[in-house]
C-alpha cells in the first residue's frame, strides 16, 4: 500500500451565481491516503492562497458526517466513489496514484450555484419550515414510558431521522426531485404518535412547498437511495405518497 499519492484535480470554478463557470486543473503531490477528501481540498486551498490565488469555495462544517453541509459531485457520483458516506468521510485511499479527480457542484435547477462548488440549498430549509416540525408547548419532562411505541416503528422513524439534508438525492436525480428528502422528513414524524397530530397538514404543506419550489416529479428510479449517504430507503417515498393521498382524501 502506498501511503501517499499524486493526483490531478479538475475543479469547477465559478465566480458567482450569474458568472460563466469553467473547469480548472490543479496538480497535487504527496497527498496522504489517510487524509480525508476535504483535508485534501484544504491542502489545495493553502497552496492557492500561498500563490496569491483565490481558494476554491466548498461547503463543510462538522466533518464527521452529521451536519449535511458538505456536498460535491466527485467522479460521477454525489459524495464520491465510496458508498454510504458523506464527502467529509471520504478518504483519499479510495483514489489511485496519478488519477484525475473531477469535482463538480450539485447540479439541479433547485440548487443554483452560488460560487465554485457551493450551491444554494435554502430550498430544503423552506420545505422544513412548511411543516417539518412538531409544535410543542414546553412543559415538564414527560414520563418516558407514557406513550409506548413499538420497536419496529421506532427503528424506522430513527432511520428516517438520520437524513442530514445534504441534497445528494436531488443531485443524483434525473428528475431533480426532492422526494427522498421530503419523505424522510415526513416519515420520521408520521411514524411516531407525537408526530401524528399534525401528520395530514405536514404532508400536504411540505409537498406543496416542494412543488412550488420547482422540484421534479418522482418516477421511482431509485438513484437517490443509492447515493444517499445515510441509506434513506425508497419505502419512505411510498409512505409519503400514502400520507399525502390519505390527507387529501380527508379534505
Amino acid at each position: 500500500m502506498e501511503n501517499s499519492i499524486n493526483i490531478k484535480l479538475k475543479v469547477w470554478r465559478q465566480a458567482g451565481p450569474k458568472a460563466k463557470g469553467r473547469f480548472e486543473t490543479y496538480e497535487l503531490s504527496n497527498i496522504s491516503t489517510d487524509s480525508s477528501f476535504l483535508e485534501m481540498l484544504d491542502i489545495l486551498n493553502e497552496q492557492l492562497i500561498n500563490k496569491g490565488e483565490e481558494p476554491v469555495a466548498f461547503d463543510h462544517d462538522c466533518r464527521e458526517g452529521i451536519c449535511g453541509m458538505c456536498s460535491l459531485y466527485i467522479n460521477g457520483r454525489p459524495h464520491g466513489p465510496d458508498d454510504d458516506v458523506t464527502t467529509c468521510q471520504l478518504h483519499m485511499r479510495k483514489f489511485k496514484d496519478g488519477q484525475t479527480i473531477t469535482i463538480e457542484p450539485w447540479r439541479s435547477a433547485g440548487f443554483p450555484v452560488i460560487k465554485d462548488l457551493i450551491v444554494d440549498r435554502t430550498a430544503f430549509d423552506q420545505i422544513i419550515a412548511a411543516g417539518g416540525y412538531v409544535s410543542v408547548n414546553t412543559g415538564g419532562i414527560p414520563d418516558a414510558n407514557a406513550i409506548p411505541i413499538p420497536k419496529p416503528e421506532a427503528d424506522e422513524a430513527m432511520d428516517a431521522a438520520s437524513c442530514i439534508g445534504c441534497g445528494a438525492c436531488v443531485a443524483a436525480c434525473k428528475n431533480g426531485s426532492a422526494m427522498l428528502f421530503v419523505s424522510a422528513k415526513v416519515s420520521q414524524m408520521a411514524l411516531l404518535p407525537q408526530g401524528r397530530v399534525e401528520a395530514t397538514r405536514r404532508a400536504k404543506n411540505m409537498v406543496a412547498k416542494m412543488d412550488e419550489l420547482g422540484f421534479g416529479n418522482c418516477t421511482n428510479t431509485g438513484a437517490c437511495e443509492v447515493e444517499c449517504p445515510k441509506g434513506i430507503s425508497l419505502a419512505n417515498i411510498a409512505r409519503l405518497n400514502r400520507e399525502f393521498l390519505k390527507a387529501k382524501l380527508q379534505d
Partner: protein
Amino acid sequence: MSSTLGSSIGKKLLMSLSGLFLIMFLLVHLTVNSFLLIPDGGEFFNAGAHFMATTPAIRVIEPLLAIGFLVHILYGVKLTLENRKARGSARYASGKKTTGVTWASQNMLVLGITVGAFLVLHIAHFWVKMKLTGDPLLEHTAISIGGVETEVENAYALVNHTFSYLWIVIVYVVAAVGLAIHLSHGFWSAFQTIGFSNQIWRKRLTVLGNLFAILIGFGFSIIPILQYLFYQG
C-alpha cells in the same frame, strides 16, 4: 380536488392509475389473442372477437380505454417535460456512475413513445378495418356458439393475413419487447406511487412486475411469430 391532481404526487397518481388500468386491459387482450393459437381455423377466436365487439359493456370500455391511453400519454409527456426543467440544463462533466438504477426506469418516455407509435399502426391494422372501413377479408363466416349457428365477421382471416407479412411480425415483436421493458419498471412503480409498497413489498412487486413483463413480452411476440410460421395457407 384540483390541487390534489395538480400536485406532483397527484399527477403521478393519474399516471399510476391509468397505467394499472392499461395493465388490466393488456391481460384481457392477451387472453383473447391466445385463442389465435387454437388450431381450429379461427372459430374460437372469432367467437371471442364477436363477443368483445357486441357485448354492451364495450360501449363503456372502449371510450374508457381511449381516455386511459390519453391521460397516460399526456401526463407522461407533461411529467417528463417538467422533470427536465426541474433538473436544469447543466450536465455533469464526469457523467453518472450511480450503479443499480435500471435502464427502463430512466427511459420510460422513450419506451412509451415506442409503444404509442406501434399503437397507431396497430389501430390502423385492425380497429379501423373492423369498425370503420371494413375489409374483404372480414366477410361473414358461420360459427357455432354454444351449438347455435351464428354469422360473425371473420376477424381471424384479417389477423392471419396481417401476420403473413414478415415486417409486420417484426414490428409487433419490437413493440412487445419495448412494452415489456416499460412494464419491468412501470409495474412496481405504479404500486409505489399509490403508496402500496415498503421494504418487503418492494422486492415482491419487482419480482412480480418482471414476471408480468416477461409474460406480456413473450405472449404478444409469440402469437404473431407462430401465426407467421405455422398458421399460413
